[in-house]
């Protein structure tokens, strides 16, 4: 690898990729091209040189340049060209910053709104001003309030747990997809049903308020997954199920044990997906027309996110859209099945 350092006349570094062990070489180098016998990093012969021109100082250290003449021309070319590259360099940096900033902004925005839910859940249960004005007796007060409406307190607890999973899923998306050093997946064997139930139980309130009964078959099979990313997929799938399924119906969750994989199928009566939407619905930024019509569409990332996360786990996501339509309050519903297939090990 070549190492270099370019400083301007004010001695401030414009760009360099020197290691801490390079510092000695840099300070002691006073030729336009000389050979050092043993590089402290690569433990071999290398050629290095330093050139001073009207703009500043350029240092270069290469392994493979054979002659001093060749090396000198490289060094000169670098010293001439680099200062003209500063403008496009600034441009590239600001563009990278912008695209990174966009990801971070999205994360901060989503976390802020989830956290807002949590804050409101807590203080809707027990008013903030009462706690702050009676802070010495607040524990007794909280105990009393919790005792007075145990059901409400339990529902708040569940919703906070759900928000936690949602937050975690936002972190996972950022950590495992948005960052450059992604693919930070941690594959471990987990019992499929428990992984599902860990997310599902937090949606209890959403399903009961629509009078939807969720039936989960017994199953003990295990899958090899990255827990965090699968949780993102399950969270989005269940959130969509709670949002788009028909009230007063049943959702059946079943498991099929194949040779090398396990398929979990979630069967429900939910918004009808017309044929022309069936492929597009899995793309980024696409919401179903009916979802938009009833004003329940999200950012159109749910289905796309689910597919992406399942595929990161070497699995398959498939939607079997029902063709028969039953109308309920003017909204078309069909029997849709969502299949998640994951590897056993």
């Amino acid at each position, binding site marked *: 690898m070549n190492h270099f350092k370019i400083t301007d006349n004010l001695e401030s570094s414009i760009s360099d990729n020197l290691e801490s062990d390079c510092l000695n070489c840099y300070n002691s180098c006073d030729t336009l091209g000389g050979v050092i016998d043993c590089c402290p990093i690569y433990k071999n012969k290398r050629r290095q040189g330093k050139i001073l021109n009207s703009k500043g100082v350029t240092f270069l250290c290469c392994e493979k340049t054979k002659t001093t003449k060749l090396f000198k021309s490289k060094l000169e070319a670098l010293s001439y060209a680099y200062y003209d590259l500063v403008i496009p360099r600034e441009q590239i940096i600001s563009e990278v910053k912008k695209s990174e900033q966009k990801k971070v902004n999205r994360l901060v925005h989503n976390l802020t709104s989830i956290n807002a839910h949590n804050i409101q859940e807590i203080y809707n249960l027990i008013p903030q001003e009462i706690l702050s004005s009676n802070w010495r007796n607040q524990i007794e007060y909280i105990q009393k309030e919790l005792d007075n409406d145990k059901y409400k307190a339990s529902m708040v607890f569940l919703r906070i747990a759900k928000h936690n999973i949602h937050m975690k899923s936002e972190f996972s998306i950022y950590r495992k997809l948005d960052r450059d*050093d992604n693919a930070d997946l941690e594959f471990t*064997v987990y019992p499929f049903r428990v992984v599902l139930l860990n997310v599902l139980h937090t949606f209890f309130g959403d399903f009961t308020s629509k009078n939807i009964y969720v039936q989960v078959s017994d199953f003990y099979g295990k899958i090899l997954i990255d*827990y965090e990313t699968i949780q993102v997929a399950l969270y989005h799938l269940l959130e969509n199920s709670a949002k788009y399924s028909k009230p007063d119906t049943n959702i059946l969750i079943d498991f099929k044990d194949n040779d090398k994989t396990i398929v979990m199928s979630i069967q429900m009566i939910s918004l009808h997906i017309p044929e022309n939407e069936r492929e597009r619905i899995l793309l980024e930024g696409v919401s179903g027309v009916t979802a938009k019509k009833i004003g329940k569409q999200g950012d159109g990332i749910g289905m796309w996110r689910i597919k992406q996360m399942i595929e990161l786990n070497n699995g398959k996501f498939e939607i079997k859209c029902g063709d028969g339509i039953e109308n309920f309050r003017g909204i078309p519903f069909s029997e849709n099945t969502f299949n998640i297939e994951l590897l056993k090990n």
Partner: protein
Amino acid sequence: MENMTEYYEWIFSGVGATIVGVIFTYFLIERKKKNNKIKTSSKISNGNITINTNVNAVSRVRESFKEINNKENNKLKDITKILFVDDKHTDFQIVSILKKQGWKNTKSIKDIINLDDPKVKESDIIFVDINGVGSNLFKDEGLGLASALKNKYNEKKIILYSADNKGDRFHKALREVDGCLSKDAEPFQFSNLIENLLG
């Protein structure tokens, strides 16, 4: 399940008693040979009791299976010694959560300054935080500590855990240890990993 069994028992004994009662009354009314009738009725009631016992037997077998499973699990939970090395160990509840799950011998310490520390020696599974521990002994903190622990005690299971991403993704410790967990992993992920390592 226990309640159900009791319930069934109650139904059966209730039904049994009623049948016996009805038959008894019937035979009393009929005024036929008293002794024989009582024998018959007791036979029937015996039959009911037998069913009862069968139900009990089945559930007892189930219970005992459950007990065996639980016992094995509990035994594992009783004997496995888990140690958390975390400079902020008092801020997190994971030790208390694991104890509640039955992993009785779970402890935590702020740092390891001596690899021969008795707490280290006795532990079967050691969770090492990447940041803020081992800095007295190693330049690369938790990663260095985990690597040294694994080299010294190959039979112990060493797990790295951190709130950050894993820092140096190419550090050799990440290949040497038995697992990695994010600090915001759920209690279930901790216990699942522990069970996987022991199983």
